[in-house]
């Protein structure tokens, strides 16, 4: 049977993609970041997930505001890097896993998560930057990818509790998939950052640390934090943290945080990374 072997939370800063693509990730500014993400790359090499389910948000790249979608899943055999306004990233096309996507979508709908299914989907930095962080610059991604997207652009975003329960439903679906494969789930975006308005550049490291401690140890409390608190404390774009709750919901109640790294600044963000493994029941 399929098995979830780990949950990863990581920011998905576009600048990171650009700097990796241009081979510019060196010098004083980037050194702590390069060092800080290496254990995640080592974890991927050691654990070799066959599939990564990447929970991310689209930034007006594949989707527009014509139809505003709370939750969706990519169904296809491949997902191209999206043109977000400055050309497609020069990274490998993601290979999908249509039978697993179909299994998850069916299971979710029967579980009352009426998820949108995208048969054509270009994936933007929200998905491709986490892959670059985890795998650097391979000629092809070493895992298959299932994109799960969350509508984070417009307020009110899905509630944290709903995201957490979506994670639980994804877990149930993966656990019942009859192939012997290892699956990692990535929650992406956040943590504190604000890109817009006169408050642009906001960082709240204390809040991020407290929030992440809660996500790891007491997710049943963290999932109920209000959107207004997140917008206020973690910045208007910090609300992307709700996607980490999907990842957390897919993990056991009890997890071990095997690695954490937080660093300010990476572009406008308090870059944050966590790796969680399930504690055996």
């Amino acid at each position: 049977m399929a098995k979830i072997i780990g949950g990863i939370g990581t920011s998905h800063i576009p600048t990171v993609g650009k700097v990796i693509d241009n081979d510019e990730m060196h010098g004083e500014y980037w050194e702590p970041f390069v060092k800080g993400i290496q254990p995640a790359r080592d974890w991927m090499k050691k654990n070799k997930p066959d599939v990564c389910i990447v929970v991310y948000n689209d930034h007006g790249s594949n989707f527009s505001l014509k139809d505003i979608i709370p939750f969706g899943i990519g169904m296809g055999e491949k997902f191209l890097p999206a043109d977000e306004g400055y050309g497609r990233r020069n990274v490998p096309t993601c290979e999908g896993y249509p039978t697993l996507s179909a299994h998850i979508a069916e299971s979710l709908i029967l579980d009352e998560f009426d998820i949108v299914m995208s048969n054509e989907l270009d994936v933007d930095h929200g998905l491709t930057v986490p892959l670059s962080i985890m795998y650097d610059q391979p000629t092809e991604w070493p895992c298959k990818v299932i994109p799960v997207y969350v509508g984070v652009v417009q307020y009110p975003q899905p509630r944290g509790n709903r995201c957490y329960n979506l994670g639980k439903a994804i877990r149930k679906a993966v656990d019942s998939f009859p192939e012997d494969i290892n699956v990692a789930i990535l929650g992406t975006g956040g943590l504190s950052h604000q890109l817009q308005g006169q408050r642009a550049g906001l960082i709240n490291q204390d809040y991020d640390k407290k929030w992440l401690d809660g996500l790891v140890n007491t997710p049943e409390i963290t999932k109920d934090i209000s959107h207004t608190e997140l917008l206020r404390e973690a910045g208007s774009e910090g609300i992307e943290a709700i996607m980490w709750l999907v990842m957390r919901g897919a993990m056991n109640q009890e997890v071990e945080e095997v690695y954490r790294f937080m660093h300010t600044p990476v572009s406008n963000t308090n870059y944050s990374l966590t790796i969680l493994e399930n504690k055996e029941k």
Partner: protein
Amino acid sequence: MKDYNDIPGTYVFDITMSQKGYGLNKFCETLNREEGREQFLNNEDEYLKTFGMSEEQQEAVKKRDINKMLELGGNIYYVFKIAAVLGHSMQAVGAMMSEEGMTEKEFQQMMINGGRPIEGNRSKKENNNG
């Protein structure tokens, strides 16, 4: 007043704003494609008229006034595409939106120093009482 409207220097992109900014964001979305970028760069005034944007929204785009676009229903992820097409980084945009009239270099330095602090930036109400 909605509770999130108490957050200073922040335009929460809620459903009302999304309705108001629909044409503006629709224009920005076309910048995902080469033909949209070409139209914007070579034929801006005429191109902006084709999305049902208000005069005020078109004016804000022409003036590259990002805060004004946000105020008129622009969403930062969409509006940023305008800046990207014009070759500005997110930090340059951050500086443009800051009320201190910051330069990009100063904005970058603020980030290196730990970012804009939450103290004093949490709540309009708190700031007025403090």
